[in-house]
C-alpha cells in the first residue's frame, strides 16, 4: 500500500474541502446557486483549453503513480482523450480546478457579504441602456 496520497485522492479531498468551506465555513452556499454553476460551466470550458495547452505542449507532465492514466510520454504529447486524459490533461485536473474555483468564488462572496468592497456591483453590460445607478439583481 502506498504511503503517500495520489493526485486522485488529494483531488477528491480538495473538492470535499471546498464544498465544506462553501457550505459550512464561509456559508456562501454557492453550490446551491445557478450563478455558480453557469459560471463554472464557462470556466471549465476554458480550463480544458488551458490545460490542453499546458499538457499538450508538455509544459507539465504527470506520473502514472499519481493519476488514473499513465505517465506522460517523454518525447510526445499524451493522448488527447482516453487513458484517464481529457484534452491531454489528467481527469484529476477537473477536481483540482473545481476546488480552486469554488474556494476562490466562495471567498469573493464571503468578503462581499462582510462589506469588503461589496460595491460597486457588476453590470449592466455596456449594450444595456439601463439608467445610471441601477445594479444587477433585477433582470430575473
Amino acid at each position, binding site marked *: 500500500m502506498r504511503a503517500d496520497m495520489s493526485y486522485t485522492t488529494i483531488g477528491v479531498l480538495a473538492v470535499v474541502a471546498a464544498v465544506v468551506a462553501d457550505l459550512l465555513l464561509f456559508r456562501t452556499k454557492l453550490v446551491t446557486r445557478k450563478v455558480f454553476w453557469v459560471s463554472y460551466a464557462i470556466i471549465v470550458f476554458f480550463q480544458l483549453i488551458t490545460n490542453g495547452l499546458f499538457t499538450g505542449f*508538455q509544459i*507539465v507532465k504527470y506520473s502514472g503513480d499519481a493519476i488514473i492514466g499513465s505517465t506522460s510520454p517523454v518525447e510526445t504529447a499524451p493522448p488527447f482523450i482516453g487513458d484517464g486524459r481529457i484534452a491531454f490533461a489528467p481527469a484529476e485536473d477537473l477536481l483540482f480546478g473545481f476546488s480552486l474555483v469554488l474556494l*476562490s468564488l466562495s471567498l469573493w462572496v464571503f468578503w462581499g457579504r462582510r462589506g469588503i468592497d461589496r460595491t460597486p456591483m457588476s453590470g449592466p453590460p455596456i449594450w444595456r441602456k439601463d439608467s445610471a445607478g441601477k445594479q444587477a439583481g433585477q433582470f430575473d
Partner: protein
Amino acid sequence: MQVSQFSYVAVLAFVIVGSIWLEVVLRTRVLVRPRRLTLTIIPVLAPFLLWDAYAISQGHWWFDESRILGLYLPGDIPVDELLFFIVIPFASVLTIEAVRSVKGWTVGDES
C-alpha cells in the same frame, strides 16, 4: 534565457486576455475592488501552494525546465505556478461577475 521559457506564462497571458475584456464590456468592476480581490486570492494561495509543493516533492507532476521562467519558490515551486494561482482566481471572479452582470442572478452578497 530562451523564448521557450515563456511558454507557461504565455498560457497565463491567454487566460488574462480571454477574461479581462469582461471588465470593460460587462462592467464586472473587479479591478476597482482590489482589497476584496486581494483578500480572496491570498487565502487560496496557502493550501494550493502546499498541495503543489507536496505533489512536486512526491513526483506527482513536474515541469519542463525549458518552458518555465526558471525562478523557484521554497518547495521547488516554479514562480509560474504562483502566478497561476493568482490568475485563475482573478479570471474566475471576472467570470461570475460577468454572469451576474448579464443575468442578474443572486450571488449572495447583495445585502
